[in-house]
């Protein structure tokens, strides 16, 4: 009897109680990667990150949109969108189609969890866009700066939101030389550089100094709104290097006890001279680089040294038929660059190095035995 009364209750208790949990909305927020940095028109790689949280632990799908605005009027279409946690603006736009400069960036972020619940409200971040600063790239002529030799210094100035090449409103640029601070031994004069247009200002100077050291040449560019960029270029000016005979044929004599047999007509050639300013072979069409000077001399059999003044090139031929077998002939070449430093080793020295580097020779000697 008792069992019968409990039956309905038992029936109820053996069923499943299920309460469908309520899916909660995720939350999202926008963080600026570099909160302290101003963002300007034309900036590249401006990063934002999203922080998303879902109380249920669901994944949150993100959707970024970036709008450019002039005053309160934002463009109808975003200029960039994204779905990653990080939102990297490739380039901040400058102005709308009507030519109105953007002054605000509106970043919108929406989040939606796996069950379709969206974050409310969606996040909107308005960022003031500042004036873009000038951008400067500097370089010098692609050769080692040497004392006393003019070297070209070039700068390319651009400004994302201001014209730089206007003839009527010249862009404000100023050159200065800031080091070595104790030396004023330099000149910095204008040089003509082609290539300036509305968005690219190409300017240059010719820098010359007689003082060894690392010079810093600075360029300051200021845009019409006063935004300023300073860029410098280090110019390590070195003393002129001595030329070095780098390659030659045939083998030269380095040991006083040896000679080179001359069995056939032979061209004695200096193939390569390394030098900072006057190499051989020369560099074509370079306004500054020159070429090596060769000074040849010969000691004929039983004779004394004669300068071969008619020879100014890199080679001299000898013919054994001009001599008798067993004759000893000494052919010598000495090299100089534009500074004409005398190769003043003793005449008996087969080689001569005026450089701290003994392998850098300015003299070669071929002691030839006619065979």
């Amino acid at each position: 009897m008792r069992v019968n009364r409990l039956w309905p209750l038992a029936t109820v208790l053996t069923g499943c109680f299920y309460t469908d949990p309520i899916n909660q909305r995720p939350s999202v927020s926008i963080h600026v990667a570099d909160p302290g940095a101003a963002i300007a028109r034309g900036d590249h790689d401006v990063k934002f990150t999203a922080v998303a949280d879902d109380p249920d632990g669901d994944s949150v799908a993100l959707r970024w949109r970036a709008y450019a605005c002039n005053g309160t009027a934002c463009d109808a279409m975003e200029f960039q969108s994204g779905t990653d946690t990080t939102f990297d603006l490739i380039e901040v736009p400058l102005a709308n189609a009507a030519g109105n400069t953007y002054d605000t960036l509106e970043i919108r972020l929406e989040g939606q969890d796996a069950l379709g619940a969206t974050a409310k409200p969606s996040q909107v971040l308005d960022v003031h866009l500042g004036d873009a600063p000038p951008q400067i790239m500097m370089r010098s002529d692609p050769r080692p700066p040497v004392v006393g030799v003019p070297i070209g210094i070039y700068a390319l100035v651009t400004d994302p939101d201001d014209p730089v090449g206007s003839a009527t409103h010249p862009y404000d640029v100023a050159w200065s030389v800031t080091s070595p601070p104790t030396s004023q031994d330099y000149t910095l004069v204008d040089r003509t550089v082609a290539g300036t247009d509305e968005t690219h200002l190409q300017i240059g100077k010719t820098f010359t100094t007689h003082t060894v050291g690392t010079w810093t040449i600075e360029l300051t560019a200021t845009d019409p709104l006063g935004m300023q960029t300073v860029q410098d270029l280090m110019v390590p000016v070195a003393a002129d290097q001595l030329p070095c005979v780098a390659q030659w044929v045939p083998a030269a004599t380095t040991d006083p006890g040896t000679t080179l047999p001359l069995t056939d007509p032979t061209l004695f050639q200096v193939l390569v001279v390394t030098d900072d300013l006057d190499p051989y072979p020369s560099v074509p069409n370079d306004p500054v680089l020159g070429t090596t000077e060769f000074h040849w001399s010969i000691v004929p059999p039983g004779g004394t040294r004669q300068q071969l003044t008619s020879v100014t090139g890199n080679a001299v031929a000898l013919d054994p038929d001009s001599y008798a077998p067993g004759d000893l002939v000494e052919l010598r070449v000495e090299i100089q660059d534009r500074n004409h430093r005398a190769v003043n080793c003793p005449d008996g020295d087969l080689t001569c190095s005026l450089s701290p580097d003994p392998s850098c020779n300015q003299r070669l000697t071929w002691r030839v035995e006619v065979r």
Partner: protein
Amino acid sequence: MKSSLAIAVLLVGCAGGADHAISDVDAGHGGEDAGGCQNVLIFDPAVPVAGDHVKVTAQVFGFVTDYAWRVDGVANTNYEGTDHNDHSAIGFDVPTAVSHTVSVDVTPPGACGHLDQTIDVMNPGGTLVMYRVRLTPPAELAPPQETLIQLHQGQNIDRPFSVDPGTVLSGTVTSGSAISAYVKFMPVLGPAFDLVTTGAFTTHLQLQAHTVLVIPQDNTLAPRLFTWMPGMGPNAFPVDAGTPAGGTVLDRSGVALANAQVQLEQLGVPSTIATTGVNGTFTTHHTFDATDPITVTVTPPPSSGLPRLTATAMFDLTKSIQISYAASPATCDLAGTTVTRASAPQANALVTVVGALAGTAGTIATGTVSAKAAGAVHIAAATNGSGVLPNMLVPRASLSAVISVAAGDFAVASLDTSTCAAQALDAPPPTVAIAQIEDPMGTNVLPGARAEAMPIGALALANLVPVEATAGANGHVSLSLAAGAHYALHFFDPGGRGAPHDYPDETAAGVPGEALLNKAIAISGQVTVIGFPNPVANASVQILCSACTGVAASQPIAETATDSTGAYRIAVPDSGPM
């Protein structure tokens, strides 16, 4: 005009190309960098001209399931040939003279799965120009190497070169112990190069057979030729006194000639130099075989008035070498001859009488082998303080006198001593010839361009020193040339604003007032050494004529050196070697 060149095999990325010294990349290696890859692209024709159809075949070692081709970056599925259903070959038309880059990616990719190559399409109207390119990298990287290149008229070309570093030989020249010697390495293919050692030496050699000439500094030791093979050596180069060979030298009267120098030579290997004694006998030492001709050269003492004798034959050096001067021509004494310039006697002028004698100047015999010897005159004497020559015997013949009034101040005068009549030698001052060097169009002068006058003819027999000048701002060069002398003129521009212009035989009067350089084409590219990752700076790049001999074979038409990035650019004549 379609080239009929053979198919060229373009090796792609073949670091192990041991048999290849220098690789003209456009006609040799290409594509990937070094890595042991032996895959190849085959272009047919190898040098296409505009209007051709080019077939490219990938020859890939290993298992391949497919090939993905691109021509100038665009996928190409124009597979070719009944044998190429596997997609290993494509074809494309080349209607214009431009370059095309062909690449293929093979599946599976593997280590060498990407090949690419640029091929230049030539102008159909142009002719082919052949040059030798000699590359001399820094000695610590690779030995000098040469290759032939074929250029198409009117077309600049990009021609990278990949140089094989070869192998390092650490050798020693010995005669009991290490000795000083001159060593010349002559590869089967490529330029010879040399070194002077005091015994031990180290050098790079190409991975190919070399003949190695060793000439000891000690004249009592005989020069010797060795064969060197990669991986086999030898590393030691022993020399000794060799085999003696002797004989006698008789003058034109049949009298023993003392102080004559005798030297033998076989295949470029000299003997020791022997000097005859008072009885005319000599003994020289050699390492020759009995199978190749031998050249005998006799240099008589200057006071004899005799010519130098040279004869080549299969001389039997086991027998005595009998050298006899012909009775004729007799000699003539130039004593008392005055050397003048503008009627003024020239003191201390050096007079070198030169010339080649007609007919037979003597005979050289060993046993039954006898050869007629040619005679060459090279006799020198200086005038006294009054400008008068001392006793100076010369053969009676039509000769030339090269007169050096002072260092570098030459004149050439005819000297006919056939009848031994009294002579007077006039040495006019050098003539200053001025030429204006201009670009190929003749519209611009070329400051910095250069002129070189290389002696030829009689002057060259006495002196090979050239006369050179660099053009000033007005393009003018001044050449001080010996009166009566002939020169080979070479106008060139180190700046590459034109290609060299040569005048093979000119006197001072023949120097052109305007020397227009030739139209140039540029060869440019990158020089690399296989296995060396850094740019090859300061490598000498010389363009040489393809078929010259003697000094001209090493006289560059144009030369340059690689820059710090390993790049070079050089201007050569559009119409080939002049």
